[in-house]
């Protein structure tokens, strides 16, 4: 049984003043191996909490998480994570960053070097191998982060707004790179994003989450990710279904945000 099942996951944070926040309520989701899921939602809908639970950094208050037949209880190399930024080790060169996972496992140097070289070719950073990571631009740093994650050959890749801090042009190139890597490696990917376009372009499946309590509001299956593997992403955006979908989801999120704001005004 391969794939990731999220079964009735709930997460409740008790606050010191006696209140509590229901960050997730009864979230269930099945991901087959090799699926690309993007997660959208207004701030406070629990999408980062969900990702942290899948990564194993948080233990849910109820429900369970099954990956390839075994229960997830903590962080592990089978679930790699790509952060927004600032998670690279600035005391290591690009090569050492990418080779971090294999080094920790004690992979023989020859195998490790092979993996690192291959991945640096894939993300196009062969010439920057010996540079310090802080000498690279933001887009290059995220390429390093992707390569570092792939070097461990994880089953699932978790991405927490990995392209959020990049400029529009770099972002577009990186989106193509993510699609290319997804197709080539066949990894299961969960991608959290704030950008509706990005979620549509990259998500083979897309869930929109709603806040208070955090839950899955709506799920889509989309054709764009498959189209984007071979085509220019700007062409994909011209697809007749793309515009209406984007409007629909934007309105959905907009309504949720309005509701939150309204609720706040009532409380005041």
């Amino acid at each position, binding site marked *: 049984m391969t794939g990731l099942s999220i079964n009735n996951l709930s997460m409740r944070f008790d606050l010191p003043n006696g209140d509590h926040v229901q960050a997730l309520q009864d979230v269930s989701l099945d991901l087959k191996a090799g699926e690309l899921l993007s997660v959208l939602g207004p701030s406070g809908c629990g999408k980062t909490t969900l990702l942290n639970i899948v990564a194993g950094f948080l233990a849910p208050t109820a429900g369970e998480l099954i990956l390839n037949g075994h229960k997830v209880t903590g962080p592990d190399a089978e679930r790699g994570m790509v952060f927004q930024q600032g998670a690279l080790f600035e005391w290591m060169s690009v090569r050492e960053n990418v080779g971090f996972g294999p080094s920790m496992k004690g992979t023989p140097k020859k195998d490790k070097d092979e993996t690192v070289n291959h991945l640096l070719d894939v993300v196009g950073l062969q010439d920057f191998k010996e540079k310090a990571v802080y000498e690279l631009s933001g887009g290059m740093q995220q390429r390093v982060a992707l390569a570092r994650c792939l070097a*461990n050959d994880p089953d699932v890749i978790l991405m927490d707004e990995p392209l959020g801090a990049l400029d529009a042009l770099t972002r577009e190139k990186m989106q193509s790179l993510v699609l290319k890597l997804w197709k080539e490696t066949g990894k299961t990917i969960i991608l959290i994003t704030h950008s509706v376009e990005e979620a549509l372009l990259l998500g083979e499946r897309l869930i929109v989450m709603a806040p208070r309590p955090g839950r899955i509001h709506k799920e889509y299956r989309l054709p764009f990710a498959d189209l984007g593997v071979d085509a220019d992403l700007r062409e994909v955006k011209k697809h007749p279904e793309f515009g209406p979908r984007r409007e629909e989801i934007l309105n959905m999120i907009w309504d949720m945000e309005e509701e939150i704001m309204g609720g706040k005004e009532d409380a005041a």
Partner: protein
Amino acid sequence: MIPLIIYVVIFVVAFFVVTKVVQGAGLRDYTSLKTVTFGDESAVRPNRAAGVISILTIFLMWGIFTGSSLLPGFLHAPGPYEGTTTFTYTAQVEGQAPDDATVTVVVHPREVDTDAPEVDPGDGFARNDSAAIAQWRTGLINVARNDDISKADGNKVIAINGQKIAPGETVEVEGGAVTLSDKGTPNFEPTRGWQMEPLYLPSPEAVWVRSIEIAKEGFRNFTLLEHLGYSLFRVVVGFFFGALVGIPLGYAMGLSDWFRGWFDPIVEFMRPVPPLALIPLVIIWAGIGEAGKIILLFLAALWIMAIAARSGVSGVKISKVHAAYSLGASKWQIMRHVIVPNSLPEIFTGARVAMGVCWGTVVAAELVAAEQGAGMMIMTASKFQNTDIVIMGIILIGVIGFGIDMLMRWAERLLVPWKGKG
């Protein structure tokens, strides 16, 4: 007041000369093209010319007011009077005509022993006198001593150089001033000029000559290098042990609730206690030998290093730790590959502070009690009024302190190039 005015004048003149005249034709770089520099901190860089002129000015001022032989004579501030001067006094005895007599005063440098010159006694009941007075000193001249009529018989001084004078009053004469004491004896004070007395501030070359002498012959049974070496040795050993205990302690406080809870009160209490305040206790416990000083410096470095290591650990971005865990690192690997390298910049900053504090503390501790060391050297010299050695010591202490900081900065650049890049 006058030195301050001279200093300000040099400052202002140098500013206008350098900025308006010299640099007008000088370097053109990116910053020089900025139109907004007031308020733009990055556009304010130390002016090298100002730095050089500033240092030269200090030596210039030093030379001017000590009559340094390094400067041409016309630059010297007026010096103290030196030479032979005379003034007359008028003595009066009731029932007799007043009589004038001359006083010859030789004003000589302090280090040259001079006797009062022989003078012709002259006519009348008031006889001519002579005296030798050192520069910057004053001398009572008992003019009635050799007169025909003694003070007890009513011989009184009523005028100096023809000017009437009463006890407590002063008359300016060539080369100084004469004040009549309460008992009616003239007191001669040679003109001091504007220069500092060598006892208070020796000239730069005197300090240099004395430095060479001390470097060759040593001071109080130890050579100069030994004095400085002892101080440095204490700092290095004290700092080493402070870091050896402080860094692991800081790591433990940053990684474990129990350690944090246990040591927080101790560290937070000891941190604001100035190490100097511990000197008496350390002397009581460990005496004035090496052990006491090293314990003191150990304590000075310990808290600083512990706090630096603790904040180095607390400063690790959680995303880096999470990333390392999801890349399969164990706790030990996270310690070794993430927490330690991430905290090194903080530890280096702490080490620089600790070295500075240790250097200050060792000098202070040596001032209190030591057989050898930079602080002991200047303290002993001051007791014997060897101001030149005191100044030499202060300059050397400053140079070494500066050197330590430079060395630490260099090591930091070399060893933690990722500082501030995370």
